[in-house]
């Protein structure tokens, strides 16, 4: 990172050779010129710079730990028994150990996004030069091109080269954070939590860096609400053509495949298909590519035998991809040094030799670390190998399924291995009688982990049986997804800033993250539809954005065909891949900056305070799996944005929960008067599990409440909260006395009923403050 302890600022310098104005130098590096906004208080924050802010949040939303293990086994003094208040040999107790694991997860996530950004930018600089301008949507008036980076680092990146400096900072911070998890370092759970927040913030910058770099260089849609629609689903693939599958998150090799095919006039003769976020970015690069589906579609697609060559880059790739590919005689190209799969590095070999080896089957795969060479080899292998492979598959026919099912002893080991406790033995038993419908039903809710198959002592190919039974469904799996649009326009922020902050748009709901859903992806689509119909702004990314797409209404339309892609009430906004999540944070930050005119540059606390108290945004990671998802959530926590996870999210082993029954926890300062005002539990939690989709929806509606809501806004938000609770729970909420501040907050159509409830609770009117958690904000500005 640019060090700032040696810092030279020149207002005006004239000499015989030159004339310079407004120049700032730091260790010889130009950190800014011509940016009127003065540097804020926390540029390039270190691990402890924002600790005080973290502790404010953590005193309101205290960690609740849910240990996954009774012991610690991270050093050779262990294993240490941490039950019943015991400390380990190093002195750490269970709370600190759990928070340490949370920090580790967030560090892994932040390192992964930042490592992704590093590889991506090195490639883009090599290809396009370090002076390539950053452009995320200049043509549509975007001036705040990197809100997260501006907020955290205090710089305004102009070129790809500027992003390298940001990466240096991120890498330093991740190293320091990871070091804090070493034996004999940090020992306090709240300090671990603060560091986890820091990792989340770093992760958010890393994601932004990656996405604005690829947006700028690769010609993606730039903040386009009408980004094109692309095809998604297994049924969209033309199996008569050679098929290439790309899996992962780092798009350059996939983009090079498209370029090679285009250059050779083969584009219409080969199908390019993708799984996970590389697929998102591939359709941003060229919407003629096809998405197969989320992370959980890997095995079912590979075993279908459709792909003739598989190219993996990084992240969320099954570790057994090579073994699975071998079963269907499909070669694998590993294109990232983070994931070499034990294959020989052929980067320097001539393409023709690699192609010959892969087509002949003399080698099962190759590491190729040059994206351009990957493009050529993958395309040529697909074309040459497809006729030989003839879509060789390992999915069983119905007759084979019935035969194999008859070997089942009903031991239930498959079900006990299944993360979702699916009724596999029952379905297999039915299949043994010739009825495969129950097996086919499991296809909708199976997360594709294959643990069932690993567990089977009789070597029944359970996952293949499920997929084979669902052949008809697979053929019908044809949907449309809107291509990831990237950033939110400044003008969109200006349009919705006031209604969001005042509460008249009831909230921004971000449906993000992986596909470990408790009951299949349809639930995510249902939730998206519920909130869009209620005129929330619904934002999506990653696997969740795909799951939303993979549903149809009675007219055969997917949600992205039904709802506009604009950041507006009732919009359904696919921002793109995992790293595009930064644009969701960026939108919240831009509301504070562009609408409310809060200084952005290196002004983290004030902006987070603004967002926390005024911007009714909530994230939902219904199927969160990874450490990246933990880091993404953590970035939002530090901004004060609540995150809800599905039931599997309980395995992150820590919640951040408010206590609505402790009134004093909900005091904020009134920035106008300096007095303390009780604003009730708004928002109630920073991180919480929802057990069912119904609970998630009610919880999110409530978590959109903010202390700053106007009466009209609070009325709209309460209308939705009450209506959803009545619809899904069948009862009135029991906490309205904590959420209604004035009679004018009460939804008009329910006034009589609610007034009675409030009277019974001894409710009294309270004031609506200009809310802040920061004493230094008192009396400093006119609220907006």
């Amino acid at each position: 990172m640019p060090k700032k302890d040696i810092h030279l600022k020149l207002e005006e310098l004239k000499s015989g050779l030159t004339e310079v104005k407004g120049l700032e130098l730091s260790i010889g590096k130009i950190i800014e010129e011509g940016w009127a906004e003065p540097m804020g208080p926390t540029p390039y924050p270190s691990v402890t710079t924002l600790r005080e802010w973290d502790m404010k949040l953590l005193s309101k939303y205290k960690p609740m730990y849910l240990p996954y293990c009774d012991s610690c086994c991270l050093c050779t003094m262990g294993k240490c028994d941490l039950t019943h208040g015991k400390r380990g040999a190093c002195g750490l107790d269970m709370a600190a150990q759990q928070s340490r694991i949370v920090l580790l997860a967030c560090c892994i996530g932040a390192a992964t996004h930042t490592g992704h950004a590093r590889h991506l930018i090195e490639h883009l600089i090599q290809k396009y030069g370090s002076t390539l301008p950053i452009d995320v949507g200049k043509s549509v008036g975007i001036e705040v091109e990197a809100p997260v980076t501006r907020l955290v680092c205090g710089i305004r990146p102009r070129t790809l080269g500027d992003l390298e400096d940001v990466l240096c900072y991120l890498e330093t911070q991740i190293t320091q954070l990871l070091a804090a998890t070493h034996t004999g370092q940090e020992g306090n759970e709240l300090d671990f939590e603060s560091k986890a927040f820091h990792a989340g913030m770093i992760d958010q910058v890393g994601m932004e860096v990656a996405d604005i770099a690829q947006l700028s260089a690769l010609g993606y849609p730039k903040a386009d609400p009408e980004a094109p629609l692309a095809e998604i689903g297994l049924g969209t693939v033309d199996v008569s053509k050679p098929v290439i599958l790309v899996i992962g998150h780092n798009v350059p090799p996939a983009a090079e495949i498209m370029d090679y095919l285009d250059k050779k006039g083969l584009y219409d003769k080969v199908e390019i298909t993708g799984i996970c976020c590389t697929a998102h970015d591939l359709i941003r690069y060229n919407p003629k590519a096809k998405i197969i589906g989320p992370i959980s579609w890997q095995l079912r697609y590979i075993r279908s035998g459709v792909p003739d060559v598989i190219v993996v880059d990084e992240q969320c790739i099954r570790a057994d991809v090579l073994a699975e590919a071998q079963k269907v005689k499909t070669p694998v190209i590993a294109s990232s040094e983070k994931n070499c799969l034990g294959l020989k590095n052929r980067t320097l070999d001539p393409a023709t030799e690699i192609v010959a080896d892969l087509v002949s089957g003399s080698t099962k795969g190759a590491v190729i670390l040059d994206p351009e060479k990957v493009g050529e080899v993958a395309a040529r292998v697909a074309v040459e190998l497809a006729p030989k492979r003839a879509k060789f598959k390992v999915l069983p026919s119905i007759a084979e399924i019935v035969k194999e099912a008859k070997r089942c002893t009903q031991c239930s080991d498959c079900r006990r291995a299944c993360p979702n406790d699916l009724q596999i033995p029952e379905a297999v038993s039915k299949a043994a009688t010739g009825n495969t419908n129950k097996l086919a039903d499991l296809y909708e809710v199976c997360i594709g982990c294959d643990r069932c198959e690993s567990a089977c002592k009789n070597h029944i190919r359970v996952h293949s049986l499920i997929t084979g039974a669902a052949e008809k469904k697979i053929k019908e799996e044809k949907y449309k997804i809107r291509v990831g649009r990237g950033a939110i326009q400044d003008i969109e922020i200006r349009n919705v800033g006031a209604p969001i902050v005042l509460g008249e748009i009831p909230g921004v709901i971000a449906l993000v993250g992986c596909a470990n859903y408790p009951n299949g992806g349809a639930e995510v689509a249902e939730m998206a539809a519920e909130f869009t119909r209620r005129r929330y702004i619904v934002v999506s990314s990653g696997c969740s954005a795909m799951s939303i797409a993979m549903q149809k209404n009675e007219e055969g339309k997917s949600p992205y065909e039904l709802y506009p892609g604009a950041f507006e009430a009732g919009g359904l906004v696919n921002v793109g891949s995992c790293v595009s999540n930064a644009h969701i944070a960026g939108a919240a930050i831009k509301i504070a900056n562009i609408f409310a005119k809060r200084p952005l540059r290196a002004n983290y606390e004030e902006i987070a305070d603004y967002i926390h108290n005024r911007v009714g945004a909530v994230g939902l990671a219904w199927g969160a799996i990874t450490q990246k998802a933990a880091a993404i959530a953590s970035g939002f926590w530090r901004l004060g944005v609540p995150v809800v996870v599905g039931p599997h999210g309980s395995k992150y082993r820590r919640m951040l929960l408010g206590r609505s029954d402790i009134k004093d926890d909900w005091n904020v300062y009134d920035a106008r008067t300096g007095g303390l005002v009780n604003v009730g539990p708004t928002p109630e939690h920073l991180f919480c599990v929802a057990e069912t989709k119904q609970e998630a929806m009610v919880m999110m509606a409530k978590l959109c409440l903010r202390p700053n809501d106007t009466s009209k806004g609070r009325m709209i938000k309460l209308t939705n909260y009450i209506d959803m609770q009545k619809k899904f729970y069948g009862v009135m909420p029991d906490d309205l006395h904590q959420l209604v501040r004035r009679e004018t907050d009460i939804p008009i159509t329910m006034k009589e009923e609610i007034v009675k409830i409030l009277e019974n609770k001894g409710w009294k009117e309270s004031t609506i403050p200009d809310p802040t958690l920061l004493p230094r904000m008192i009396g400093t500005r006119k609220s907006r």
Partner: protein
Amino acid sequence: MIARAEPWQTAEVSGLTRALPVIKPEVVVAAIKKSKRPILIVGHEAASVDLEQGKPIDYIIQIAELTGAQIVATAHVIGEFTQRGFNRASWMPIMDISNRLRDPNWQGLDGQGRYDLVLLIGFQYYLEWVTLSGFKHFAPHLKTISLGRYHQPHANWSFPNVTPVDWERQLKSIVKQLKEK
């Protein structure tokens, strides 16, 4: 019948302290009778699982009526209680009620003092697993019983993994013995 006192999900290996298996329902009945302030936390599966003669929620209502125990319904299951004419259940997410129960100073939903026995039923296995682990580590003032069909090693007492038929038999037996008290 599967009746093993081991975790239902095979990789959820139990920890250093483990639940005592409830082989006879008398254990549950005795614990409830001994408790001064029992509380039942009921998840959504209590209303979605069909047993031969009812749903788990039907037995839970009977237990609550016989003992006066407080019920907290989680997720969307509160409506199932009111539909059955049981109107004194509270509701909140499992994380919220867990957070309150872990606080030794919390005086309960009615302000009459802290609870001493927590009975859980109706949750995804893994969600109950971590919830009980949280109680085990951070709520030493609580005893916990899992009334679910599958063995929960982090509880103080839990059924072994049992068949639906045996599960219903156990729940019925608890109700019957509470009636006889």
